[in-house]
């Protein structure tokens, strides 16, 4: 188990390198550059040339990549060209917001999703089941930006329960968490319901019925536990996306976060920031996947055996 963990962590290094190359190439393939965003009316071509040289943008791509990589391995992600701050500072300012939003949304979708999915399975074919299924449908078919706008209109403008935008208070988290969470709830709910029905068809459940235990008791105490394994599989795959999944929502709700930072820096072609953000995202996903795999191993002894 320990060996497996070490092996996985070591594997991250070459992947990290590969990701860095891809990330670097991709952003440099996009037409336009940060200097265009900085030069203002009245500046001469010489001034543009000075700027280009100052940021090393006239060097061949390989050299630029080398410089970036070397600095990065030393812990320095470089300075943003347009935003003029160290990339690390920008990410440090924005990451906690995304983590908070994504984390809460993840928690919300897990708790509410498992609850509603289990309820739907236990009371299969009743009105509870049908309303849960409808909720699932709505959650997965409405575009998230539309849902976000509708929620703002209803809860922030008409009812004035929550602020419209920003991140100045805890209440500002409610609507964005709901928007992202509803998608997640739909997914988790569907999987939980399906898993519970699946487990419910197995032989040991029949045996428990024969023993005389009540339907509710069987479902809650036995079926749910077994059903949680496939649910955990799905959830573990989505842990890595906590940070990146909020891109559109951060825009609609004018919240700070890695997604907003990425979109802004992409629009300004601020290379160091885009590279840093994408790299962070990739790392988050890889670590998240690793965490998910560990959780799965912890929950299922069969997987532990396989890994040995």
């Amino acid at each position, binding site marked *: 188990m320990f060996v497996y963990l070490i092996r996985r962590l070591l594997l991250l290094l070459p992947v990290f390198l590969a990701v860095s190359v891809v990330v670097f190439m991709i952003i440099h393939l*996009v*037409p*336009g*550059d940060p200097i*265009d*965003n*900085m*030069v*203002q*009316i*009245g*500046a*001469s*071509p010489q*001034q543009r040339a*000075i*700027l280009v040289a100052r940021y090393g943008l006239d060097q061949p791509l390989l050299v630029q990549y080398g410089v970036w990589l070397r600095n990065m391995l030393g812990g320095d992600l470089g300075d*943003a060209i*347009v*935003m*003029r*701050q160290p990339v690390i500072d*920008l990410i440090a*300012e924005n990451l906690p917001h995304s983590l908070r939003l994504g984390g809460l949304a993840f928690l*919300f979708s897990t*708790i*509410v999703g498992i*609850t509603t999915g*289990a*309820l739907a399975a236990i009371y299969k074919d009743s009105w509870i089941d049908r309303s849960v299924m409808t909720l699932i449908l709505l959650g997965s078919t409405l575009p998230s930006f539309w849902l976000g*706008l509708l929620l*703002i*209109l209803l809860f*922030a*403008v008409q009812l*004035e*329960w*929550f*602020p*419209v*935008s*920003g*991140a100045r*208070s*805890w*209440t500002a988290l*409610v609507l964005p968490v709901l928007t992202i969470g509803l998608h997640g709830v739909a997914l988790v709910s569907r999987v939980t319901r399906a898993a519970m029905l699946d487990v419910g068809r197995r032989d040991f459940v029949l045996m428990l019925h024969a023993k005389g235990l009540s339907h509710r008791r069987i479902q*809650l105490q036995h079926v749910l536990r077994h059903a949680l394994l496939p649910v955990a599989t799905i959830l573990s795959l989505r842990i890595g996306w906590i940070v990146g999944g909020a891109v559109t929502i951060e*825009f*609609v*709700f*004018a919240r*700070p976060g890695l997604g*907003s*930072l990425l979109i*802004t820096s*992409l*629009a*300004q*072609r601020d290379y160091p920031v885009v590279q840093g953000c994408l790299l962070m995202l990739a790392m988050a996903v890889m670590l998240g996947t690793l965490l998910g795999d560990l959780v799965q191993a912890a929950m299922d002894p069969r997987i532990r055996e396989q890994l040995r």
Partner: protein
Amino acid sequence: MTVLTRPLKVLVLAMASTMISVAPAIAQDAVFVINAREAGSPTYNPIKGTKLNVGNNLIFDRMVVQDADQSFHGQLATSWESAPDGMSWTFKLRKGVKFHDGEPFNAKVIEWWLPKYKGTENAFMTDAIDKVVIVDDHTVKLLMKNPDPSLLLNMATSFMGIPSPKSYEALGDKFGVTGAVGSGPFKFESFTIGQQTKLVRNDDYRWASGLSINQGPAKIKRLTLREIAEESTAFLELKTGGVDMLLSVPTDFMPRIEAEKTLKAVVLPGTEVFYMPINTSVAPFTDIKVREAVALAVNQKEIQMSLFGGLGAVANNFLVSSLQESKINPKFNISYNPERAKKLLDEAGWAVGSGGIRAKSGTPLTVKLWTQNGTQFKRVTEVIQAQLKAIGVNAEITVQDPASINAMYKKKTDHQLAVRAYDYTNADILDWFFSGTRLGYPNVSMWNDPNAEELNAKAMKGSRTWEERVANFKSYHEYVMSQFVFAPIYQPTQSFAYSQARLKVPEKIRGIKMATQTIMDIEVK
């Protein structure tokens, strides 16, 4: 029933926390949303910054400021005069001014300050200055390399805000990011890029310009400047009281704001122009007749009425109408004239074919119409596409990403027509966009005409006084118009909106925009 109460508990907790957070608003605190075009500025460093927002002139003072009619008024300079040959300027400085860090403002500061621009992106503003001579503690004389009639104009921009030398040297690269020390009515407290800036009143401020009723300190105690990208979100914040003022109002929301009794919208003369450059170096636009036809096809009035609700003004030439240089001989102005446009195209050999689109020797008159991502740009472009179709020109729209569009223009031959806008209140914008030395971008029209270059040189470098400058620029402007290298479209107004329940704003707005001059006088109720 433990399974059901869990989600219920979460809901109750959420509702409870909302009720607790509804605390009474602290007096004398205001929140403004900055102009969408100023959003994303990365720094409050006037010397090095290339993109600054309204906060800059709240933290720093300038030598002079402008009123709504473009006239100059003293702020840190109490009076000034230039020699008749334009080769030197003498400024008398205000006494008793202190920076936020306690350092005094005097002639030594100016001596330190002006050379700091060398090598920065804003160097062109001080390029003409050869030497700074200290006459006495509060008088400086600037010796010039050549006459620069734009000196006062440049000094009134945000880029010539004056920072405290001690602080500037101490903070180095971090100046403008982690701290910014000027002598302005507000002090820098904190700055989160792309999100918000927190400013706090400078209680020692007593030296506002003559344009503010209140000579200092400002009435607002704590001012937060927020950046909100999504227009509807910004509007909703104003409506629900989350913010007190929007420094720019999208035209779509004007009717709603006007309908709300607690909100007030104010419209100011604009500083922007929408126009359509024509690439003169590729067919079919090498033919001046085709260029003129396309320029005459734009129905400026229709665009103003239906896309902008009648607000703003049509554009008939290249400059903002508040500039003197825009008042050229009316025969050079361009307005909608579809009959003449069609006649010109007939004369040029483009006959109307099937589907209403013209063709010449088998080639249809299909042109590329570029625009950039943004609600107003896309709308104007779609209407122009329809207007071009009406005279038989088939325009294909491509919506480019704003960051890549300049790189695309530099390829020089891919583009034909484009819908663009600029925000600038100085006639030398003609040089920026039409000088033969800047082909591709910003000279999207790819225009390189010897007559134009001669008129350009005369206007830019050969004027000794302001009056000469105006006359020379008018001649240059008229020649540009006569060659039909672009089509004028529209001049948006500026507007801002605020909550009347929370703020008391003076009737008359001093200055070209809602900025320091007026903010000094805004009170929180």
